[in-house]
């Protein structure tokens, strides 16, 4: 059994071993191994030239990663916490995302930006945000997130292999979740949605840290005689919604669960597309459960903010009430 944190570490190690052009860069990623130890022992194995402790400057990390990529390297940047990516926002959205298209396809930018995201760890401000929508809203970026160790292990490698920039969101409150991983071959491509468990009455869509919540919700529903199909999106941009449409057409009811604020969140886009594609199959409007449209609250209030089992069950009740 391996944790998500360790699985990413193993995925990074394998990518570093297989391709000498892969680099890891960020604050405290070297000797310390990152504040979550995701890059633990990589520097002692691969050296300071490949596992780079950068100066404390996110714009600098991303900007130089772009330069390294232009020179043929594949940098994997670590942003220490979700709330500290913003100093690099210009480099990511105006530079990294656009260079391939500006160069009419000549320049490749295989940069991965790893961001531990989401709340639930009792942290101080700026350490609990779910800011995936900013990046999913930016054309030119690919955005993915893992919810379990096996995906963590494979998706980080697939992200590194991608010739496009990939924002790789890591569900930090699940870093210590354990499961087996299969080192032989990936079960899915990077941009594929997974049906976690099948069901007939309602489709519950989630990604990242709330997939575990969704599985718990489905178990409670099962006891109440409601069969819930759980889907883990995995890929936030591009979205892989074909299996979602198929599921919605089967169940007729859909709830989307994520930590990010619901206003203009991923759930809004998905609900809209489901409505367009599956209108005549729906028995209820597509409902969303998510964070409130407020700054992430202080730790002692976060249990109210975070969409949990009860709030999801409440939405499911409402979906069945139609």
């Amino acid at each position, binding site marked *: 059994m391996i944790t998500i944190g360790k699985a990413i570490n193993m995925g990074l190690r394998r990518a570093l071993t297989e391709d000498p052009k892969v680099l890891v860069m960020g*604050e*405290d990623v*070297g*000797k*310390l*191994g990152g*504040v979550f130890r995701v890059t633990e022992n990589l520097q002692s194995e691969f050296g300071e030239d490949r596992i780079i*402790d*950068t*100066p*404390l*400057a996110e*714009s*600098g990390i991303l900007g130089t990663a772009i330069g390294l990529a232009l020179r043929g390297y594949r940098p994997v940047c670590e942003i220490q916490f979700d*709330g*500290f990516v*913003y*100093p690099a926002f210009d480099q990511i959205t105006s530079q990294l995302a656009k260079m391939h298209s500006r160069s009419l396809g000549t320049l490749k930018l295989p940069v991965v930006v790893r961001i531990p995201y989401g709340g639930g760890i*009792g*942290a*101080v*401000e*700026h350490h609990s945000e779910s800011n995936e929508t900013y990046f999913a809203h930016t054309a030119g970026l690919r955005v993915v997130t893992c919810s379990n160790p096996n995906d963590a292990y494979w998706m980080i490698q697939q992200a590194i292999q991608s010739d496009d920039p990939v924002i790789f969101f890591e569900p930090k409150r699940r870093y210590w979740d354990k499961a087996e991983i299969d080192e032989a071959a990936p079960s899915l491509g990077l941009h594929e949605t997974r049906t976690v468990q099948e069901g007939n009455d309602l489709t519950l869509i989630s990604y990242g840290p709330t997939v575990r919540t969704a599985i718990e919700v489905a178990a409670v529903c099962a006891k*109440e005689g409601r069969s819930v199909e759980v889907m883990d999106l995995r890929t936030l941009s591009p979205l892989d919604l074909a299996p979602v449409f198929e599921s919605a057409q089967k169940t007729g009811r859909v709830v989307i669960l994520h930590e990010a604020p619901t*206003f203009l969140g991923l759930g809004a886009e998905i609900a809209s597309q489901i409505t367009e594609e599956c209108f005549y199959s729906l028995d209820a409007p597509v409902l969303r459960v998510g964070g*409130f*449209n*407020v*700054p992430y*609250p*202080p*730790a*002692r*209030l*976060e249990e*109210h*903010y975070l969409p949990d089992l*009860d*709030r999801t*069950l*409440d939405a499911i*009740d409402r979906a069945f009430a139609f």
Partner: protein
Amino acid sequence: MSELQLVQILSPEGELLTDPEYPLEISTEEIRALYRDLVMVRRFDVEATALQRQGELGLWAQSLGQEAAQVGSGRALIPGDYAFPTYREHGVAWAKGVPPEKLLGMYRGINHGGWNPHDNDFHLYTLVIGSQTLHATGYAMGIQRDKSNNAVIAYFGDGATSQGDVNEAFTFASVYHAPVVFFCQNNQWAISQPIESQTKVALYKRAAGFGFPGVRVDGNDVLAVLAVTRVALARARAGEGPTLIEAFTYRMGAHTTSDDPSRYRLAQELEEWKLKDPIARVKSYLTRSGLANEDFFADIEKEAEAMASKLRGDIIDAEDPYVEAIFDHVYAEPHPILEAEKNAYINYLESFAEGDMK
């Protein structure tokens, strides 16, 4: 990095030195008061650290070892001078008169700030590295336009000097002659990264490139820090623009209570810095010159203990925030989405209270 050109007035052994550039007029009473500040601030920090260990705080960022840099600079400020701290400036907060228990709120997870910045001209703590240096510069530009006789002090760490914001703050302050003092506590570390990973030049020398003076002061010497900061503030008030002060000090504790420095630095380094302790040298000066006796020290210890136990009581009794607080201060004016969300959530919570659970 060698300690070149370090302004020092009180040696680690407690000998009083003089620096012609930074003459310090100070009474015995003032030195005794500074000693008290240092002891109180350290005791406060020790108590907060213990409170974190006992689960009363989620996190704590220790000021241990940096008391002289913080107290010395904080005491150089006059009423109306505004301070922009990072998350570690507990000693400056003390000098500014912020009630100590208020500093614990955000570390306990009950708020994101917890004090009214206007009460003490002490801004909220800023966790995003470097941002506050620009706010300080803008505030100073306001003071300048108001033709007020005040100045601003911006605190930041050695790691922060790598951030774009800090370098932009230097540029703005320089071109506008803004009355701001940039006070960098070089505590030698930014989490696990030593100062060498941020800069190849002594930090204070960077100021020259931006067109204003920079000075390195012994950050563990409260008298030198006081003298140097006073001069910098006087320049700012006189319309001569910013100064960069590099207070050469040491982070004697972990980065925060979540950190384990044994993973990246040698214990020997801490032992060497203990010989330069900011409090010990003032005590030995006061003792050797006969300016304070055992009673004086014992009284302060007692006062510090009383402060610590009050702090403990205050924080354990601190009320948890009410749920509506999530929504209440996001906007200054009413906002329909938040009103709707708040009402819906309160109704939802009430449905549990009514035993209306599924």
